Every structure is written in C-alpha cells, then in structure tokens.
C-alpha cells in the first residue's frame, strides 16, 4: 500500500474511532481515550529509535515533559492555539533529541540507555528549579470549557491527539518500507557491517533520535491543557519511560503495528483497571502490572505478539 493510501486509511480509522467515541455519549471516554492515544504516540515514537535502530531510550519522560513545559513557558507570554503549541513542543524536543543523539550515539547498547536515563534526571532537575514555569510547585491554567463546532474541550484534545497518532503511525510505517528503514534495520543488526555496506550510521541515528524526540514532545505539548495543572512529578513520571518501552516490546518492535497492538492491550488494561477501581487503594499496581507483563514477554516472546504471529505463520497452522 502506498503511503498516501495508508494515510487515508489511517484517517478513516481515526474518524471511525472519533465517531464511535462520540456515540457513547459519555465525556469520560474522551478523557480516558486521550491517555491511550498519547501512549500510542509515545510508543510509536519510542519504537522509531528503539525498535527500528535498536537503541533503547529510557528518556521518554524528558522529551514528553519538554513538550509540556514548552507549552507552559509559551502560555506565560501569549495564548496560542494548541496545534501551534504542539509544533513548538515538537521542535524543542526534536532539537534536544538531535543534541542528545550527537553527544551519546557513539555509545552503544546499554551505555546509550544509561545516558538517556541521565538526560531525564538532568532535565527534571532543571525544570524543578526553573521558577518561571512554576518550579516544584507546578503551574496551572484555566482551560476553556468549550470549543466551537465540537463542543467540549475534552473532545478537542482527544481529536488533536488522535490526529497526531495517525501522523505518527503513518510516519513509522512509511519509514519501515523505505531506504531509511532498511538503513535502520542494518544498524540494529550490525553497525559495523552497516558502515561497511555504505550506511552512514551516525546520520541515520541522528534522524531517528530527532524524529522520535519530536513526536514525544508533540505528545507532551497539550498535557497542561489536558490536566489544567502541570508539575515535575506528573510530567516526569516513570510511567512514560516504562510504558513507552513496554508497549512496543509487547506488540513487537520491528513493525509499526507492534506499538499499536501493545498500546491497545496495555493501555486498555490500565484504563480498565482505573475505571473499575479494583486497585483503587494501590495505584502503584498499574506499574507493577506493566512490569510483570513486560518480564513475561521478554522471557517468553522477545519479538512480541507480532513475532509470535510471524513464527506461527512460518511453521504453518499446526
């Protein structure tokens, strides 16, 4: 399928999702759905670097929060429409992604991962001590109750995140079948052999960190408007790092569909758990749940659900 055709199909799926959500007639669907879509963008963005090139990034919270705080900083000066704020968040996180890549991509494997973890700590410390955006107290806005045409503001946020998810998944898929995607796969499999085959590995890795960071920043940009309140604790939570790794791993990291499946399953279960309030008194159970599922997959199905399906197909139906 050509990329344009895929984009149209993805938009159609997005439209169906949106009208299904509207047909439920309960605003909470948009509030919960926003979180699922936000994770879909984060998981897809993580996978462009982590799944396609094999560089495991623990710094998702940094890129997400930079997007969120970019919005906070701009909003202190002027009121801009959300799409513009998302673009700004994407630029800031993309530039940080490029810089981080340039400084750290000479490190391989686990050393790169440790450096990204350090980035998250450094950015959090800086933000916590930056009083202009509220420091450790956090910052808040009074968000509009309604928007023209759609009605509720939650629907507007949901729609924006839905569009971003469509764009992110389309980008991920178009990379997969492209020259860039083959270069990424070569890097993932063997960087020395990739160089010997003419692949400019550093340049390609920088493209991946920039693109991945930018999408994460865009996902974070509306966060202040979603919660109406933003502080370092909520913007830099461990959940983003863990979920954005777990979702692609559970789904399968080598294809665009992997993060989609993983997000639908994991984020779906998380939302169900919080709605059904079974872990009401133990909010950390959410992260525990993810951890246990992740360990199970890493041990039993390292190529995720997509890998299981592929293996089953290769062997043929028993």
């Amino acid at each position, binding site marked *: 399928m050509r990329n344009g055709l895929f984009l149209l199909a993805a938009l159609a799926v997005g439209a169906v999702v949106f009208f299904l959500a509207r047909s439920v007639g309960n605003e909470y669907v948009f509030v919960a759905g926003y979180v699922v879509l936000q994770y879909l963008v984060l998981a897809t963005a993580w996978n462009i670097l982590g799944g396609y090139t094999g560089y495991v990034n623990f710094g998702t919270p940094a890129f997400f929060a930079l997007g969120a705080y970019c919005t906070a900083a701009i909003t202190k000066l002027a009121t801009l429409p959300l799409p513009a704020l998302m673009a700004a968040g994407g630029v800031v996180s993309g530039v940080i992604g490029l810089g981080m890549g340039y400084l750290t991509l000479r490190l391989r494997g686990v050393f790169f991962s440790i450096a990204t973890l350090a980035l998250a700590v450094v950015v959090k410390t800086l933000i916590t001590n930056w009083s202009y955006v509220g420091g450790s107290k956090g910052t808040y806005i009074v968000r509009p109750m309604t928007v023209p045409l759609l009605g509720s503001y939650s629907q507007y946020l949901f729609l924006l995140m839905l569009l971003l998810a469509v764009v992110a998944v389309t980008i991920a898929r178009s990379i997969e079948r492209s020259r860039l995607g083959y270069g990424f796969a070569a890097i993932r499999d063997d960087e020395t*052999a990739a160089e010997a085959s*003419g692949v*400019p590995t550093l340049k390609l890795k920088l493209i991946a960190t920039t693109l991945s960071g930018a999408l994460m920043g865009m996902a974070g940009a509306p966060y202040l408007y979603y919660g109406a309140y933003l502080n370092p604790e909520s913007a830099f939570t461990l959940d983003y790092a863990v979920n954005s790794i777990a979702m692609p791993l559970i789904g399968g990291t080598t294809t665009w569909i992997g993060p989609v499946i993983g997000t639908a399953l994991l984020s779906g279960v998380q939302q169900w758990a919080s709605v059904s309030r079974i872990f009401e008194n133990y909010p950390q159970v959410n992260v525990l749940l993810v951890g246990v599922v992740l360990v199970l997959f890493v041990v039993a199905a390292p190529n995720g659900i997509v890998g299981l399906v592929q293996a089953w197909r290769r062997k043929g139906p028993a």
Partner: protein
Amino acid sequence: MSVPLLAVEDVGKRFGGFVALDAINLEVARGERVGLIGPNGSGKSTLVNCLCGTLRNESGSVRFDGAQMDGLPAHERTRLGMARSFQLPRPFRSLTVAENIRIPLLYTVNAREGRHLTPAEIEERSLELLGLVGLGGKAGGEPRDLSQVEMRKLELARAMAADPKLLIADEAMAGLSHSEVDDILALLHRLNERGITIILIEHIMRAVMSFSERLVVLVAGRKIADGLPDEVIRNPEVERAYLGE
C-alpha cells in the same frame, strides 16, 4: 608505473601498549591480485580494519584511487569503491538474504553520482548477485537458515553488491571444503577478470598460492616480505615465522 589504486604509507596502530601494526607500507596496482598472509595475531585483520575505516590508524596514511582516506568514516570509503567481507560473517539477521544484498545497493550504489537503480532493478541485481555466489535459491530465506559456507558466500555477495574497485576478502574460505574453496576462488577470478582489484587474506596456502600474483607477509605487525609468491615462501625470514628456528 601508473599511480597505484591503494597506497598505504607507514600505517601504525596500537592497542594500549601492544603494537598491532608497525609502519606498514604497501602498494596495490589496479587489477592486481594480492595475497596477504601471516600467522594468527600478526595484524592482517587490523590492517584491513584500518584500510576500511572500521579502526583509525594512529600514524601513517592510506590513499585510495587518488583520494586521501584518513579520517573518512567506513561508509564513505565503501562508497569510494573499497569493499570488504568480514572474517566472521556478520549478516543482517533480521533481514532476508536478498534484503542483505539490498543494503549496499541502496546505500552505496545509489549513493554515488549518476543513475540510480529503480526498486525493480535493485530486486533484479540482488537476485543476480545471489545467483553468482550460488545462493539464488535462498533469496527469501533468513541468514539463520544458512550454513557456514553459505554465510561466507553471502558476505562476498554483499561486498560485491557495493560494486567495488577493490575487494578485500578477509578469510572468506576458512573452514570450507576443497571443492568449496575452488568455487570461491573461481568466483574471485571472475571478479578480477572484470577489473576488480582483490586482496585475499587467507590461511589456506593452496588457495593463496594459486590465486595471488603477489604475496605480502605480515608477522607481529611488521611487513617482512612482499614479492612473487614462489620467491616469498622461500624467503628464510618467512620460513622462520611459520616453522620456527
């Protein structure tokens, strides 16, 4: 004498206190078939890595096809026409056999000036190359389904896909049977007839002696002999290195 294709001048490489290469000088003419031999640990692979940009040499310089190579990353050297196969096969394991060949076609051949291959031509060319090394039937398979011999053939096919001027075959025949060695030798001869310069690094003396027009011997990071194969192996210093005093 015309300008050599490859000119290595005083190249030195250390790993900590260990001198892996000690001021190596070497020239290879266009179209030549050069054998490079030496005991294990004598620096053959290190020299290849310095030529190809996988390692950086600390001293000396490498010139290839009229251009200075020092400081150039490996992928640019490949694009300029220097291709290698690895001693231990390093296939792209998550790609199919045909896709392994596609990488250098996309990133080396199509990165050069001039006409670029279309997707259909890339497909055709990768199958042609696989056919040439006898892997035509395995194109859709994965590297893990290949035997050791087939892996080595894939290494060679991937290096050839880069359409090189110089092919460095680093122990492409280790562990192969008599007839398989002959297969690879015939293949290398065919490439050489098309004008590709070849450096063959090999322990199998029968293969090196029949293939090489010139033989270079490294021992403990130093070049101790360079000349006609028959003369080089009678060189007392070479005998001493291989057989002891």
